Protein backbone atom coordinates (compact mmCIF):
# COMPACT_ATOMS: atom_id res chain seq x y z
CA UNK A 1 0.00 0.00 0.00
CA UNK A 2 2.64 2.43 1.13
CA UNK A 3 4.88 1.73 -1.86
CA UNK A 4 2.14 2.41 -4.32
CA UNK A 5 1.42 5.81 -2.83
CA UNK A 6 5.10 6.75 -3.12
CA UNK A 7 5.25 5.78 -6.77
CA UNK A 8 2.01 7.63 -7.33
CA UNK A 9 3.48 10.73 -5.77
CA UNK A 10 6.62 10.36 -7.79
CA UNK A 11 4.75 9.96 -11.00
CA UNK A 12 2.62 12.99 -10.24
CA UNK A 13 5.79 14.93 -9.51
CA UNK A 14 7.27 13.81 -12.77
CA UNK A 15 4.20 14.82 -14.69
CA UNK A 16 4.16 18.19 -12.96
CA UNK A 17 7.83 18.68 -13.74
CA UNK A 18 7.18 17.82 -17.34
CA UNK A 19 4.30 20.27 -17.55
CA UNK A 20 6.46 22.91 -15.94
CA UNK A 21 9.22 22.24 -18.47
CA UNK A 22 6.72 22.56 -21.29
CA UNK A 23 5.44 25.72 -19.74
CA UNK A 24 8.92 27.23 -19.48
CA UNK A 25 9.44 26.53 -23.15
CA UNK A 26 6.18 28.31 -23.96
CA UNK A 27 6.91 31.41 -21.89
CA UNK A 28 8.00 33.65 -24.77
CA UNK A 29 4.99 32.56 -26.83
CA UNK A 30 2.65 33.10 -23.93
CA UNK A 31 4.17 36.52 -23.36
CA UNK A 32 3.65 37.56 -26.97
CA UNK A 33 0.13 36.16 -26.87
CA UNK A 34 -0.47 38.14 -23.72
CA UNK A 35 0.77 41.36 -25.27
CA UNK A 36 -1.41 40.75 -28.32
CA UNK A 37 -4.44 40.24 -26.10
CA UNK A 38 -3.62 43.23 -23.93
CA UNK A 39 -2.80 45.51 -26.82
CA UNK A 40 -5.33 48.27 -27.38
CA UNK A 41 -7.49 47.44 -30.36
CA UNK A 42 -9.46 50.51 -31.29
CA UNK A 43 -13.05 50.06 -32.26
CA UNK A 44 -13.88 52.37 -35.12
CA UNK A 45 -17.30 52.92 -36.62
CA UNK A 46 -17.28 54.03 -40.24
CA UNK A 47 -20.33 55.47 -41.95
CA UNK A 48 -19.88 55.06 -45.69
CA UNK A 49 -22.15 56.42 -48.35
CA UNK A 50 -23.67 53.84 -50.65
CA UNK A 51 -22.66 55.43 -53.94
CA UNK A 52 -18.98 56.33 -53.56
CA UNK A 53 -17.30 55.37 -50.31
CA UNK A 54 -18.90 51.99 -49.75
CA UNK A 55 -18.07 51.06 -53.33
CA UNK A 56 -14.55 52.36 -52.70
CA UNK A 57 -14.22 50.14 -49.63
CA UNK A 58 -15.61 47.28 -51.68
CA UNK A 59 -12.95 47.93 -54.30
CA UNK A 60 -10.27 47.77 -51.61
CA UNK A 61 -11.66 44.37 -50.66
CA UNK A 62 -11.98 42.95 -54.14
CA UNK A 63 -8.50 44.21 -55.02
CA UNK A 64 -7.19 42.24 -51.99
CA UNK A 65 -5.74 45.27 -50.33
CA UNK A 66 -4.81 44.75 -46.72
CA UNK A 67 -5.99 47.20 -44.14
CA UNK A 68 -6.48 47.26 -40.38
CA UNK A 69 -9.45 45.18 -39.20
CA UNK A 70 -10.57 47.77 -36.65
CA UNK A 71 -13.30 49.46 -38.66
CA UNK A 72 -16.91 48.39 -38.51
CA UNK A 73 -18.55 49.69 -41.62
CA UNK A 74 -22.13 50.92 -41.66
CA UNK A 75 -23.56 51.64 -45.07
CA UNK A 76 -25.84 54.65 -45.38
CA UNK A 77 -27.52 55.85 -48.55
CA UNK A 78 -25.78 59.21 -48.41
CA UNK A 79 -23.32 60.90 -46.08
CA UNK A 80 -26.08 63.47 -45.62
CA UNK A 81 -28.00 60.75 -43.78
CA UNK A 82 -25.42 60.67 -40.99
CA UNK A 83 -27.07 62.51 -38.16
CA UNK A 84 -25.02 63.87 -35.28
CA UNK A 85 -27.08 61.48 -33.16
CA UNK A 86 -25.49 58.52 -34.96
CA UNK A 87 -22.00 59.73 -34.18
CA UNK A 88 -22.74 60.54 -30.55
CA UNK A 89 -24.49 57.21 -30.09
CA UNK A 90 -21.45 55.43 -31.46
CA UNK A 91 -19.23 57.25 -28.96
CA UNK A 92 -21.66 56.62 -26.12
CA UNK A 93 -21.69 52.90 -26.91
CA UNK A 94 -17.93 52.61 -26.77
CA UNK A 95 -16.55 53.52 -30.18
CA UNK A 96 -12.99 54.85 -29.97
CA UNK A 97 -13.28 56.68 -33.26
CA UNK A 98 -15.87 57.53 -35.85
CA UNK A 99 -15.13 57.86 -39.53
CA UNK A 100 -17.54 59.39 -42.03
CA UNK A 101 -16.91 59.03 -45.74
CA UNK A 102 -18.87 60.50 -48.61
CA UNK A 103 -18.57 61.41 -52.26
CA UNK A 104 -16.20 64.19 -53.26
CA UNK A 105 -17.77 67.68 -53.25
CA UNK A 106 -19.86 68.07 -56.37
CA UNK A 107 -20.16 64.31 -56.88
CA UNK A 108 -23.03 63.58 -54.52
CA UNK A 109 -25.63 61.24 -55.93
CA UNK A 110 -28.27 63.44 -54.30
CA UNK A 111 -26.57 66.66 -55.39
CA UNK A 112 -25.71 68.19 -52.05
CA UNK A 113 -25.99 65.57 -49.34
CA UNK A 114 -22.25 65.63 -48.74
CA UNK A 115 -22.29 69.40 -48.15
CA UNK A 116 -24.88 68.88 -45.46
CA UNK A 117 -22.64 66.20 -44.03
CA UNK A 118 -19.70 68.60 -44.07
CA UNK A 119 -21.65 71.25 -42.19
CA UNK A 120 -22.93 68.75 -39.62
CA UNK A 121 -19.43 67.41 -39.22
CA UNK A 122 -18.00 70.87 -38.58
CA UNK A 123 -20.77 71.64 -36.12
CA UNK A 124 -20.16 68.32 -34.36
CA UNK A 125 -16.42 69.01 -34.19
CA UNK A 126 -17.19 72.20 -32.35
CA UNK A 127 -19.51 70.39 -29.98
CA UNK A 128 -17.27 67.44 -29.18
CA UNK A 129 -14.35 69.75 -28.52
CA UNK A 130 -16.50 71.55 -25.99
CA UNK A 131 -17.74 68.36 -24.34
CA UNK A 132 -14.19 67.09 -23.96
CA UNK A 133 -13.90 64.45 -26.69
CA UNK A 134 -10.67 64.74 -28.69
CA UNK A 135 -11.59 66.21 -32.09
CA UNK A 136 -9.25 63.71 -33.76
CA UNK A 137 -11.60 60.89 -32.85
CA UNK A 138 -14.03 62.07 -35.51
CA UNK A 139 -12.93 62.29 -39.11
CA UNK A 140 -14.63 63.14 -42.37
CA UNK A 141 -13.00 62.16 -45.64
CA UNK A 142 -14.15 62.06 -49.24
CA UNK A 143 -13.65 58.66 -50.89
CA UNK A 144 -14.82 58.04 -54.45
CA UNK A 145 -15.79 54.66 -55.88
CA UNK A 146 -12.39 54.25 -57.52
CA UNK A 147 -10.34 55.11 -54.44
CA UNK A 148 -9.97 51.69 -52.83
CA UNK A 149 -6.32 52.34 -52.12
CA UNK A 150 -7.03 55.68 -50.49
CA UNK A 151 -9.66 54.01 -48.33
CA UNK A 152 -7.21 51.38 -47.12
CA UNK A 153 -4.62 54.05 -46.36
CA UNK A 154 -7.21 56.18 -44.60
CA UNK A 155 -8.26 53.27 -42.38
CA UNK A 156 -4.64 52.50 -41.52
CA UNK A 157 -3.72 56.08 -40.69
CA UNK A 158 -6.93 56.67 -38.74
CA UNK A 159 -6.43 53.48 -36.73
CA UNK A 160 -2.88 54.57 -35.90
CA UNK A 161 -4.17 57.96 -34.81
CA UNK A 162 -6.76 56.41 -32.52
CA UNK A 163 -4.13 54.05 -31.10
CA UNK A 164 -2.06 57.08 -30.19
CA UNK A 165 -5.05 58.69 -28.50
CA UNK A 166 -5.78 55.54 -26.52
CA UNK A 167 -9.11 54.05 -25.49
CA UNK A 168 -12.10 56.36 -25.24
CA UNK A 169 -13.34 57.07 -21.71
CA UNK A 170 -16.83 58.07 -22.72
CA UNK A 171 -18.54 54.74 -22.09
CA UNK A 172 -17.03 54.35 -18.61
CA UNK A 173 -18.01 57.85 -17.64
CA UNK A 174 -21.59 57.24 -18.77
CA UNK A 175 -21.61 53.99 -16.77
CA UNK A 176 -20.77 55.81 -13.54
CA UNK A 177 -23.58 58.20 -14.27
CA UNK A 178 -26.72 56.16 -13.90
Amino acid at each position, binding site marked *: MKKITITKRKSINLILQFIFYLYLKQVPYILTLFTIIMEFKPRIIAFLCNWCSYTGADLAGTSRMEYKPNVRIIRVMCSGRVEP*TFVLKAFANGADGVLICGCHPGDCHYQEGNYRCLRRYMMLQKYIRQI*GIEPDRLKLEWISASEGKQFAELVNSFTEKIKELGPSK*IKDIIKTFA
Partner: protein
Amino acid sequence: MEEKKPKLKLAVYWAAACGGCCVSVLDVHEKLFDIISAADLVFWPIALDTKYHDVEKMPDSYIDVTLFNGAIRNSENEEMAKLLRKKSKILVAYGSCAHLGGIPGLANFTTKDEIFKRVYFESESVTNEKNVIPVPEYKAEEGSLFLPSFYNDVKSLSQVTEPDYFIPGCPPQSERLLEVFKAIVSGAELPPKGSVIGAEIKTQCDECIRKKTENKRIKKFYRPWEIKDDGVTCFMEQGVLCMGPATRAGCGYRCIKGNAPCRGCYGPPPGTPDPGAKMMSAVASIIDEKDPEAIERVLEDLADPAGTFYRFSLPVSLIRRKIL
Protein backbone atom coordinates in the same frame (compact mmCIF):
# COMPACT_ATOMS: atom_id res chain seq x y z
CA MET B 1 -74.23 61.48 7.07
CA GLU B 2 -73.37 61.83 3.45
CA GLU B 3 -70.44 59.69 2.51
CA LYS B 4 -67.70 61.68 0.87
CA LYS B 5 -65.25 60.54 -1.69
CA PRO B 6 -61.85 60.54 -0.02
CA LYS B 7 -59.79 63.55 -0.98
CA LEU B 8 -56.72 63.13 -3.10
CA LYS B 9 -53.40 63.51 -1.35
CA LEU B 10 -51.03 65.78 -3.17
CA ALA B 11 -47.35 66.47 -2.54
CA VAL B 12 -44.94 68.86 -4.18
CA TYR B 13 -41.22 68.58 -3.60
CA TRP B 14 -38.27 70.55 -4.84
CA ALA B 15 -34.81 69.13 -5.29
CA ALA B 16 -32.12 71.11 -7.15
CA ALA B 17 -34.54 73.71 -8.47
CA CYS B 18 -34.96 77.45 -8.49
CA GLY B 19 -38.42 77.37 -6.96
CA GLY B 20 -40.07 78.47 -10.18
CA CYS B 21 -41.91 75.18 -10.54
CA CYS B 22 -43.49 75.55 -7.10
CA VAL B 23 -44.50 79.08 -8.05
CA SER B 24 -46.01 77.75 -11.26
CA VAL B 25 -48.27 75.58 -9.11
CA LEU B 26 -49.36 78.75 -7.29
CA ASP B 27 -49.82 80.44 -10.67
CA VAL B 28 -53.11 78.67 -11.13
CA HIS B 29 -54.37 81.63 -9.04
CA GLU B 30 -57.94 81.27 -7.82
CA LYS B 31 -58.12 77.74 -9.21
CA LEU B 32 -55.89 76.78 -6.31
CA PHE B 33 -59.07 76.70 -4.24
CA ASP B 34 -60.52 74.12 -6.63
CA ILE B 35 -57.36 72.08 -6.18
CA ILE B 36 -57.55 72.35 -2.42
CA SER B 37 -61.21 71.38 -2.42
CA ALA B 38 -60.35 68.26 -4.41
CA ALA B 39 -57.03 67.43 -2.80
CA ASP B 40 -55.16 67.70 0.45
CA LEU B 41 -51.64 69.00 0.22
CA VAL B 42 -49.70 66.74 2.52
CA PHE B 43 -46.15 67.80 1.77
CA TRP B 44 -44.91 70.98 0.15
CA PRO B 45 -41.71 72.48 1.58
CA ILE B 46 -42.25 75.90 0.00
CA ALA B 47 -45.63 76.36 1.67
CA LEU B 48 -46.14 73.82 4.45
CA ASP B 49 -44.16 72.86 7.49
CA THR B 50 -44.25 69.11 6.99
CA LYS B 51 -40.90 67.59 7.92
CA TYR B 52 -39.03 64.80 6.22
CA HIS B 53 -39.66 62.45 9.15
CA ASP B 54 -43.39 63.05 8.73
CA VAL B 55 -43.09 61.79 5.19
CA GLU B 56 -41.10 58.81 6.39
CA LYS B 57 -43.92 57.92 8.79
CA MET B 58 -46.50 57.85 6.01
CA PRO B 59 -47.51 54.37 4.85
CA ASP B 60 -46.28 53.30 1.41
CA SER B 61 -48.32 54.61 -1.54
CA TYR B 62 -50.05 57.02 0.82
CA ILE B 63 -49.69 60.08 -1.43
CA ASP B 64 -51.75 59.95 -4.61
CA VAL B 65 -49.74 62.37 -6.73
CA THR B 66 -46.30 63.84 -6.12
CA LEU B 67 -45.03 66.62 -8.31
CA PHE B 68 -41.26 66.33 -8.08
CA ASN B 69 -39.39 69.30 -9.46
CA GLY B 70 -35.68 69.90 -9.64
CA ALA B 71 -32.67 67.90 -10.67
CA ILE B 72 -30.69 65.46 -8.51
CA ARG B 73 -27.66 67.36 -7.26
CA ASN B 74 -26.81 65.83 -3.89
CA SER B 75 -27.56 62.82 -1.72
CA GLU B 76 -30.50 64.56 -0.07
CA ASN B 77 -32.22 65.01 -3.44
CA GLU B 78 -31.68 61.37 -4.29
CA GLU B 79 -32.88 60.15 -0.91
CA MET B 80 -36.05 62.23 -1.15
CA ALA B 81 -36.66 61.08 -4.73
CA LYS B 82 -36.50 57.46 -3.63
CA LEU B 83 -38.57 58.11 -0.51
CA LEU B 84 -41.28 59.91 -2.43
CA ARG B 85 -41.29 57.16 -5.03
CA LYS B 86 -42.08 54.69 -2.28
CA LYS B 87 -44.74 56.86 -0.67
CA SER B 88 -46.56 57.94 -3.83
CA LYS B 89 -48.91 56.17 -6.19
CA ILE B 90 -48.04 58.54 -9.04
CA LEU B 91 -44.68 60.29 -9.14
CA VAL B 92 -44.51 63.05 -11.69
CA ALA B 93 -41.24 64.57 -12.86
CA TYR B 94 -42.44 68.15 -12.97
CA GLY B 95 -40.53 70.72 -14.97
CA SER B 96 -37.40 70.64 -17.09
CA CYS B 97 -34.97 69.93 -14.24
CA ALA B 98 -36.69 66.74 -13.13
CA HIS B 99 -37.48 65.79 -16.72
CA LEU B 100 -34.14 66.51 -18.42
CA GLY B 101 -31.72 67.85 -15.82
CA GLY B 102 -32.51 71.43 -16.71
CA ILE B 103 -30.39 74.47 -16.08
CA PRO B 104 -28.62 72.89 -13.05
CA GLY B 105 -27.59 70.15 -15.48
CA LEU B 106 -25.25 72.61 -17.17
CA ALA B 107 -22.99 72.04 -14.17
CA ASN B 108 -22.04 68.81 -15.91
CA PHE B 109 -19.70 70.92 -18.03
CA THR B 110 -17.49 71.08 -14.97
CA THR B 111 -16.72 68.96 -11.91
CA LYS B 112 -17.44 69.01 -8.21
CA ASP B 113 -13.89 70.11 -7.40
CA GLU B 114 -14.03 72.97 -9.88
CA ILE B 115 -17.36 74.15 -8.48
CA PHE B 116 -16.08 74.02 -4.90
CA LYS B 117 -12.91 75.85 -5.89
CA ARG B 118 -14.88 78.61 -7.56
CA VAL B 119 -17.55 78.95 -4.90
CA TYR B 120 -15.51 78.58 -1.72
CA PHE B 121 -12.14 80.02 -2.72
CA GLU B 122 -12.15 82.11 -5.88
CA SER B 123 -15.46 83.92 -5.79
CA GLU B 124 -14.96 87.67 -5.51
CA SER B 125 -17.30 87.99 -2.55
CA VAL B 126 -15.69 85.21 -0.52
CA THR B 127 -12.87 85.32 2.01
CA ASN B 128 -12.05 81.85 3.20
CA GLU B 129 -8.88 82.11 5.23
CA LYS B 130 -9.22 78.76 6.95
CA ASN B 131 -9.89 76.99 3.63
CA VAL B 132 -13.16 75.53 4.82
CA ILE B 133 -15.26 73.50 2.44
CA PRO B 134 -18.42 71.56 3.23
CA VAL B 135 -17.83 67.94 4.18
CA PRO B 136 -20.53 65.26 4.52
CA GLU B 137 -19.57 64.51 8.11
CA TYR B 138 -18.07 66.83 10.73
CA LYS B 139 -17.07 65.70 14.18
CA ALA B 140 -17.79 68.40 16.72
CA GLU B 141 -17.26 68.03 20.45
CA GLU B 142 -20.97 67.45 20.97
CA GLY B 143 -21.17 64.76 18.31
CA SER B 144 -21.15 64.26 14.57
CA LEU B 145 -22.88 66.65 12.19
CA PHE B 146 -24.01 65.57 8.77
CA LEU B 147 -24.53 67.37 5.49
CA PRO B 148 -25.84 65.86 2.25
CA SER B 149 -22.92 64.97 0.01
CA PHE B 150 -22.53 66.92 -3.18
CA TYR B 151 -22.42 64.79 -6.34
CA ASN B 152 -20.00 65.23 -9.19
CA ASP B 153 -22.81 64.87 -11.74
CA VAL B 154 -26.25 66.37 -11.96
CA LYS B 155 -28.87 63.78 -12.81
CA SER B 156 -32.45 63.85 -13.91
CA LEU B 157 -35.15 62.21 -11.80
CA SER B 158 -35.47 59.22 -14.12
CA GLN B 159 -31.78 58.47 -13.63
CA VAL B 160 -32.22 57.72 -9.93
CA THR B 161 -35.77 56.40 -9.71
CA GLU B 162 -38.77 55.62 -11.89
CA PRO B 163 -41.18 58.48 -12.33
CA ASP B 164 -44.58 57.63 -13.81
CA TYR B 165 -45.03 60.74 -15.89
CA PHE B 166 -43.12 63.74 -17.09
CA ILE B 167 -44.52 67.25 -17.33
CA PRO B 168 -41.94 69.34 -19.19
CA GLY B 169 -41.41 73.08 -19.11
CA CYS B 170 -39.36 75.70 -17.35
CA PRO B 171 -41.71 76.14 -15.63
CA PRO B 172 -44.59 74.02 -16.92
CA GLN B 173 -47.57 76.04 -18.03
CA SER B 174 -50.11 76.20 -15.22
CA GLU B 175 -53.00 75.54 -17.63
CA ARG B 176 -51.37 72.25 -18.53
CA LEU B 177 -51.01 71.32 -14.87
CA LEU B 178 -54.71 72.00 -14.36
CA GLU B 179 -55.58 69.79 -17.33
CA VAL B 180 -53.49 66.96 -15.93
CA PHE B 181 -54.90 67.48 -12.46
CA LYS B 182 -58.47 67.45 -13.76
CA ALA B 183 -57.78 64.22 -15.61
CA ILE B 184 -56.50 62.60 -12.43
CA VAL B 185 -59.38 63.88 -10.27
CA SER B 186 -62.05 62.84 -12.77
CA GLY B 187 -60.57 59.35 -12.81
CA ALA B 188 -60.05 59.41 -16.57
CA GLU B 189 -57.89 56.72 -18.05
CA LEU B 190 -54.28 57.71 -17.57
CA PRO B 191 -51.67 57.44 -20.29
CA PRO B 192 -49.10 54.61 -20.12
CA LYS B 193 -46.34 54.88 -17.55
CA GLY B 194 -43.32 56.86 -18.64
CA SER B 195 -45.13 59.17 -21.04
CA VAL B 196 -44.73 62.90 -21.28
CA ILE B 197 -48.00 64.55 -20.38
CA GLY B 198 -49.20 68.11 -20.57
CA ALA B 199 -47.49 68.61 -23.93
CA GLU B 200 -48.00 67.88 -27.60
CA ILE B 201 -46.23 65.27 -29.70
CA LYS B 202 -45.29 67.66 -32.49
CA THR B 203 -42.50 70.19 -32.55
CA GLN B 204 -42.66 73.82 -31.65
CA CYS B 205 -42.29 74.88 -35.30
CA ASP B 206 -45.39 72.93 -36.13
CA GLU B 207 -47.64 75.21 -34.14
CA CYS B 208 -45.58 78.39 -34.26
CA ILE B 209 -47.48 81.48 -35.39
CA ARG B 210 -44.57 83.14 -37.17
CA LYS B 211 -44.50 83.17 -40.95
CA LYS B 212 -42.35 80.39 -42.38
CA THR B 213 -41.18 79.71 -45.90
CA GLU B 214 -39.33 76.75 -47.33
CA ASN B 215 -36.44 79.01 -48.10
CA LYS B 216 -34.40 78.83 -44.93
CA ARG B 217 -30.87 79.99 -45.67
CA ILE B 218 -28.45 81.29 -43.10
CA LYS B 219 -25.26 83.09 -43.98
CA LYS B 220 -24.70 84.59 -40.57
CA PHE B 221 -26.05 83.95 -37.10
CA TYR B 222 -27.27 86.92 -35.12
CA ARG B 223 -27.94 87.39 -31.45
CA PRO B 224 -31.54 88.55 -30.90
CA TRP B 225 -30.42 92.12 -30.13
CA GLU B 226 -28.45 92.38 -33.36
CA ILE B 227 -31.45 92.27 -35.66
CA LYS B 228 -34.49 94.43 -36.11
CA ASP B 229 -37.13 91.78 -35.61
CA ASP B 230 -40.21 92.37 -37.74
CA GLY B 231 -42.32 90.31 -35.34
CA VAL B 232 -43.70 88.15 -38.13
CA THR B 233 -40.95 86.18 -39.89
CA CYS B 234 -39.56 82.93 -38.50
CA PHE B 235 -36.55 83.56 -36.24
CA MET B 236 -34.41 81.03 -38.06
CA GLU B 237 -35.06 82.80 -41.35
CA GLN B 238 -33.81 86.00 -39.75
CA GLY B 239 -30.66 84.24 -38.63
CA VAL B 240 -31.51 83.98 -34.95
CA LEU B 241 -31.03 80.58 -33.37
CA CYS B 242 -34.40 79.25 -32.21
CA MET B 243 -34.72 75.81 -30.63
CA GLY B 244 -38.18 75.30 -32.16
CA PRO B 245 -37.20 72.55 -34.63
CA ALA B 246 -36.02 70.23 -31.85
CA THR B 247 -38.48 71.15 -29.11
CA ARG B 248 -41.79 69.66 -28.16
CA ALA B 249 -44.83 71.88 -28.57
CA GLY B 250 -47.34 72.47 -25.83
CA CYS B 251 -46.14 75.57 -24.07
CA GLY B 252 -48.35 77.81 -26.17
CA TYR B 253 -45.23 79.38 -27.75
CA ARG B 254 -45.08 82.03 -25.10
CA CYS B 255 -41.49 83.02 -25.78
CA ILE B 256 -42.26 83.47 -29.47
CA LYS B 257 -45.29 85.57 -28.60
CA GLY B 258 -42.97 87.71 -26.51
CA ASN B 259 -40.66 88.08 -29.51
CA ALA B 260 -37.95 85.88 -28.04
CA PRO B 261 -36.65 82.74 -29.75
CA CYS B 262 -37.42 79.34 -28.22
CA ARG B 263 -34.85 78.03 -25.74
CA GLY B 264 -36.02 74.45 -25.75
CA CYS B 265 -37.34 73.95 -22.21
CA TYR B 266 -40.07 71.54 -23.31
CA GLY B 267 -37.44 69.02 -24.30
CA PRO B 268 -37.15 66.85 -27.37
CA PRO B 269 -40.17 65.59 -29.31
CA PRO B 270 -40.90 61.83 -29.03
CA GLY B 271 -38.36 59.49 -30.59
CA THR B 272 -35.43 61.83 -30.15
CA PRO B 273 -32.66 60.38 -27.99
CA ASP B 274 -30.55 63.50 -28.09
CA PRO B 275 -32.22 66.90 -28.48
CA GLY B 276 -29.03 68.86 -29.08
CA ALA B 277 -27.85 66.54 -31.84
CA LYS B 278 -31.18 66.94 -33.56
CA MET B 279 -30.84 70.68 -33.34
CA MET B 280 -27.27 70.60 -34.66
CA SER B 281 -28.50 68.56 -37.58
CA ALA B 282 -31.30 71.03 -38.30
CA VAL B 283 -29.12 74.11 -38.00
CA ALA B 284 -26.29 72.67 -40.09
CA SER B 285 -28.62 71.85 -42.94
CA ILE B 286 -29.81 75.43 -43.36
CA ILE B 287 -26.40 77.08 -43.41
CA ASP B 288 -26.02 78.40 -46.91
CA GLU B 289 -22.32 77.73 -47.52
CA LYS B 290 -20.40 74.93 -49.18
CA ASP B 291 -16.82 75.91 -48.64
CA PRO B 292 -15.25 74.64 -45.36
CA GLU B 293 -13.73 78.04 -44.56
CA ALA B 294 -16.99 79.85 -45.18
CA ILE B 295 -18.84 77.33 -43.00
CA GLU B 296 -16.25 77.82 -40.29
CA ARG B 297 -16.89 81.56 -40.47
CA VAL B 298 -20.64 81.07 -40.07
CA LEU B 299 -20.13 78.69 -37.15
CA GLU B 300 -17.86 81.15 -35.39
CA ASP B 301 -20.95 83.14 -34.48
CA LEU B 302 -22.14 80.23 -32.37
CA ALA B 303 -20.12 81.00 -29.29
CA ASP B 304 -21.33 78.13 -27.14
CA PRO B 305 -22.97 75.36 -29.21
CA ALA B 306 -23.03 72.78 -26.41
CA GLY B 307 -24.56 75.19 -23.93
CA THR B 308 -27.09 76.46 -26.45
CA PHE B 309 -28.26 73.17 -27.87
CA TYR B 310 -28.23 71.34 -24.54
CA ARG B 311 -29.41 74.21 -22.38
CA PHE B 312 -31.99 72.07 -20.58
CA SER B 313 -30.95 68.56 -21.47
CA LEU B 314 -27.26 67.91 -20.87
CA PRO B 315 -27.68 65.16 -18.21
CA VAL B 316 -30.03 63.14 -20.42
CA SER B 317 -28.12 63.71 -23.65
CA LEU B 318 -26.08 60.86 -25.11
CA ILE B 319 -22.73 62.02 -23.74
CA ARG B 320 -24.24 63.35 -20.48
CA ARG B 321 -21.32 65.34 -19.16
CA LYS B 322 -18.01 66.82 -20.07
CA ILE B 323 -15.44 64.06 -20.59
CA LEU B 324 -12.37 64.75 -18.51
